């Protein structure tokens, strides 16, 4: 069983939702990033590491700005993998890479080379918000071969036909987007989240994690009641950017994940 599956199994055994955290690679700088990652993994089950992209059209201002900043500081694909490899020496928790398709498509050794390096660095899966599974004909077989989990997204607008197609292509877990929109902390989430989780689960036995918009206990709690995992990104990045208490926020989310 892969690390991602294990993370969800243990969370379930402990009657709680898994806490999936997102951090932009090398934000605000490489050393602080590594420390933050390890701090968060004290309470989180899975870490998504954002490989920064120049044109993150699925992201709101918080993650856009963090991506722009680390790219300006010289962050690259190779350096992101180095940061992951360093983390892997210190944690056995599941790590995923979240990025857009062009950095993979343009990798000097192609999609296969990208996934191979991702795996060698110690990451367990990949999340690509601009690559629906029907555009991933070449990536999916390569990922299966290398045992890299492919996490695709379902959305409130997804039809049953899309839910079927997307969930079948997922490995590890299914990422359900809570709102029609981009990433970013919100004070309240739509009423139809439980409905999307239920509809998704009708097509798959994989765990369903809900993300986009989770900002703290109040937004995390209702998701933890209905989903197998809660994803938090922008709120963490914002906390880091503003020099606020990251450990306090992570503990708050972890607490919200308890059922």
């Amino acid at each position, binding site marked *: 069983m892969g690390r991602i599956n294990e993370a969800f199994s243990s969370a379930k055994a402990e009657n709680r939702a898994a806490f999936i955290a997102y951090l932009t690679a090398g934000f605000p700088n490489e050393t602080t990033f590594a420390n933050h990652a390890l701090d968060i993994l004290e309470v989180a089950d899975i870490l998504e590491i954002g490989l920064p992209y120049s044109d993150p059209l699925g992201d709101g201002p918080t993650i856009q700005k963090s991506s722009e900043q680390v790219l300006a500081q010289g962050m690259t694909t190779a350096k992101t993998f180095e940061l992951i490899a360093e983390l892997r020496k210190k944690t056995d928790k599941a790590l995923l890479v979240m990025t857009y398709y062009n950095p993979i498509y343009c990798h000097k050794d192609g999609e296969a080379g990208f996934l191979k390096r991702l795996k060698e660095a110690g990451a367990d899966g990949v999340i690509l918000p601009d690559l629906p599974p029907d555009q991933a004909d070449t990536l999916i077989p390569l990922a299966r071969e290398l045992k890299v989990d492919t996490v695709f997204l379902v*959305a409130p607008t997804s*039809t049953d036909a899309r839910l079927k197609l997307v969930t079948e292509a997922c490995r590890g877990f299914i990422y359900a987007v809570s709102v*029609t929109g981009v990433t970013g902390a919100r004070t309240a989430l739509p009423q139809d989240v439980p409905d999307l989780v239920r509809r998704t689960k009708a097509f798959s036995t994989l765990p369903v994690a809900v993300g986009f918009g989770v900002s703290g206990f109040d937004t995390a709690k209702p998701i933890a009641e209905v989903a197998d995992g809660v994803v938090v990104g922008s709120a963490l990045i914002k906390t880091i950017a503003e020099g606020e208490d990251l450990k306090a926020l992570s503990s708050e989310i972890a607490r919200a994940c308890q059922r």
Partner: protein
Amino acid sequence: MLFPQPNAKGRFGIYGGRYVPETLIPALDELSEAYQTIGRSPDFLAEYHHYLKTYVGRPSLLYYAENLTRYCGGAKIYLKREDLNHTGAHKINNAIGQALLAKRMGKKRFIAETGAGQHGVASATAAALFGLHCTVYMGEEDVRRQALNVYRMKLLGATVSPVTSGTRTLKDATNEAIRDWVTHVRDTFYIIGSVIGPHPYPMMTRDFQSVIGFETMEQLELAEGRKVPDVVVACVGGGSNAIGIFAPFAYLPDAERPKLIGVEAAGHGLQSGAHSASISAGKRGVLHGSLMYLMSDDDGQISPAHSVSAGLDYPGVGPEHSYFADAGLANYVSVADEGALIGFKKLSEIEGIIPALESSHAIYHTLELAPTMAKDQVIVVNLSGRGDKDVTEAMRVMNLMEADNGKN
């Protein structure tokens, strides 16, 4: 289907596709369905052509540029006068088409991206005409360069939303428009201005713009007794005006196809890195929903584009152009900022027509090409827009260049 490409999955050869967040996929399915049923229906097309005729002012003239022909001393040069359309460029052909479709689909709100502001103005115009609100995303740098168009959009009742992320140009305006669309997908129609974006946009925009090429065929037959010229020249940024005039010719059998030449913006020169020549100097990649030729670094980070013309200042080129380039159905060359400014001045002086800086790239290439051709040969240049919007920027850049030359 008007043309043999794309296939059912929205691929022109390998290019195109739908690389967008899952949230948008059902909206794209809905749009594809609406376009195939409503958008190709005789009733819709009759209404579309009614507006083209009575509102846009089509057919646009195919003008025999006798002075320019004499000046070059070679092939006969015709100008397809898209600059004479209402709002001053070819963009209105597509904006009217998409807006009509949106209206029939029951959408309540328009959004659009714009570079030079021509598509923004065209979308704002269509919104005013059909009584809907339009929000136009425009990079902060372009807001500065194209102040006149910003005011025009506001006058037309649109909201202009300046974009401050990334390079603050068309690429970033497009990102922001897509973000708006993901957020308001249920009631908003995104009017994409070029032959870019996820399927069915490159096909739909191409179809609406292909009126340029079909008219050219008819008009050239009257003028020259033949439908097909020897050469067709058009500037290429994202590529909508070029596709509009190329498409009806590109899929003709090999023996009948004219030479199609797309002119990209070489900016400060292809070696400088500061250009917008995605085919001439780029590579394959994915941007704004499509696989296409684009400019990116080794890590797949999109490179900033540069052109003196805001409308060509885009780091990618539509999937159908990418396909034409690979298949040899069209040729792509590039002209630098300086050449474009020469084209801008020459056409103004010789023909009394001030072209858009975008179209000036095609004019400059024609100035070089026509003298090498025989007098019985025919070139058609797509004059995609008029230059009124560019006068201030052209003056500024020409003054800078003169100052530089003075120093050397």
